[in-house]
């Protein structure tokens, strides 16, 4: 089943679900005609898209609104904050090609502050699927949640068979590690999983937490990893500020937990636009580059 097939079947059961788009149809191109008036394209109008979604939600509907992640979270930010956040309406915002997935588009299209912006809005939640399997696993929970959500859309083919128990606010504990715990969300999951194997081949005990919902964060899982490992590593295709590193730092501070933390993120820069593999190579986000950074950091601790 694909993302749009799942949406189609959900609309078939529950007519309150509306599939909307600001003419960003890549993930839902086959839905017009299949779901009748429950498909609404507002044209290249992210602000109007979000406002209309709020209006539909005000009438008891569940709009699932699609746009490119940058335009959605940046151009329409005030509409999201004012018209979805303040009234706490169950609008689901789907940001396409977030993070590195914008590959060759350039900085205007790089949604690498989206987690920071969306989690900063009271009532808003954030779902960051690692791949298509997790996207489909989590989607029904997100759509039926009474809260507003930002979905960092990612339908890459999985390289890992996920734990099929999905619970909002719970991370997927892929492994626990006595030396290192890698914390990751979204698209970077796959490279991080491979980095874990590389580190293990060097004799290290490596945990991996897949942060399915950066908000609400799985506080217990993060704090447990901080107490049980010697090094925490946050890995994200996002600016250093406001994303997972910030979330972890806030949690540790609030709970008076001291830990060694290595953030791997984009520090004060946009990334080099290129094909996706070339971006990872250039920016040092391949499994090998991640493993090397983590290994060096771990060595420096001893």
């Amino acid at each position, binding site marked *: 089943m694909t993302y749009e097939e799942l949406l189609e079947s959900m609309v078939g059961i529950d007519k309150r679900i509306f599939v909307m788009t600001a003419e960003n149809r890549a993930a839902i191109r086959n839905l017009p005609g299949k779901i009748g008036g429950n498909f609404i394209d507002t*044209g290249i109008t992210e602000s109007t898209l979000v406002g209309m979604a709020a*209006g*539909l939600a005000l009438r008891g*509907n569940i709009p699932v609104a699609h746009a490119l992640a940058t335009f959605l979270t940046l151009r329409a930010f005030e*509409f999201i904050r*004012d018209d979805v956040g303040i*009234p706490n309406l169950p609008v689901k915002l789907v940001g396409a090609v977030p993070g590195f997935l914008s590959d060759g588009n350039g900085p205007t299209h790089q949604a690498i502050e989206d987690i920071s912006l969306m989690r900063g809005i009271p009532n808003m939640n954030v779902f960051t699927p690692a791949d298509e399997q997790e996207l489909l696993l989590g989607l029904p929970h997100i759509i039926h949640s009474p809260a507003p959500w930002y979905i960092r859309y990612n339908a890459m083919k999985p390289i890992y068979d996920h734990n099929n128990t999905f619970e909002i606010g719970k991370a997927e504990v892929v492994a626990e590690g006595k030396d290192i715990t890698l914390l990751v969300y979204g698209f970077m999951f796959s490279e991080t999983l491979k980095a874990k194997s590389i580190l293990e081949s060097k004799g290290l005990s490596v945990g991996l937490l897949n942060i399915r919902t950066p908000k609400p964060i799985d506080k217990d899982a993060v704090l447990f990893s901080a107490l049980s490992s010697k090094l925490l590593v946050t890995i994200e295709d996002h600016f250093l500020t406001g994303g997972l590193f910030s979330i972890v730092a806030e949690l540790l501070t609030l709970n008076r937990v001291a830990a060694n933390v290595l953030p791997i993120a984009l520090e004060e820069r946009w990334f080099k636009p290129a094909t996706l593999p070339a971006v990872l190579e250039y920016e040092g986000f391949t499994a090998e580059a991640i493993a090397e950074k983590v290994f060096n950091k771990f060595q420096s601790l001893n």
Partner: protein
Amino acid sequence: MNNLSETTVQELQSRALVVREHCIKMSTDGGCFLGASLSCVDLLNYLYSEYLNVSTENLSDPNRDYLFLSKGHDVPALYGVFAERGFIPRERLQNHLKTNDSIYWHPNRAIPGVEYHSGSLGHSLSVAMGVSMDCKLKGQTNKIVVVLGDGECNEGSVWEGLLVAAAHKLDNLVVVVDRNQFQANMKTEELIPLEPFGSKFEAFGWNVLGCDGHSYSDLHSAFSSIKLGEGKPTAVIAQTVRGKGLPSIEKRADRWFCNFSHEEVDALLNELHTQEKANIQSEVIIAR
């Protein structure tokens, strides 16, 4: 179309006078956007009394008519009308800017009758469009009305919404512009000219009507001639006067936000009834 009877017009005018009193009483102890409120008193009074199918009886009926006050800073006029229509007790208006209630400078849904909060300009049109689309899809025949300020029409999201509403043939949607000729601190035509205003709406695919926003018979003939359900949304450009009813503040760029002394409020209430100009000493507040 039936004309409004003379009795009805008199009733509307008496009610408007009371609503204006409510607005003036809110222009102290913190103040309010009095100029922008007084310009749309007659408009809101007419809509809630004669045009909209909404009352204390059907506030939560999905088939009711909806009004979205997009230029939210004129909320004293809305609350004044609500008090006179029985949506809220009149005494509640005395809670203006007090923390024991939610009566502040912009509308919010804690107040019965408010469909949606506003404050940031250029938002309510698209929200109303979502409501409009849902009502159409459900085969309802109710009306969705959005009140915009003329200054608010500087916002790009207004024009984006107008474009999309016409594309989706939202013919249960009525935009009313409170055309009081002023934006915050300036005359609209001196800063960002809007004229020819009506032809802009027409070019965007809307039906356009005009009226005197202080004449109940004129408001009635405009709103009675709106054709719903015929494929196009409608805009009514209501010509109004900022500060209407108080000659000492009418048409003044510097009387948008007002915070008067209690004595000045008394003098303005007297001015409302006698048209004898009050002696206003309070300093001009340039808001925004």
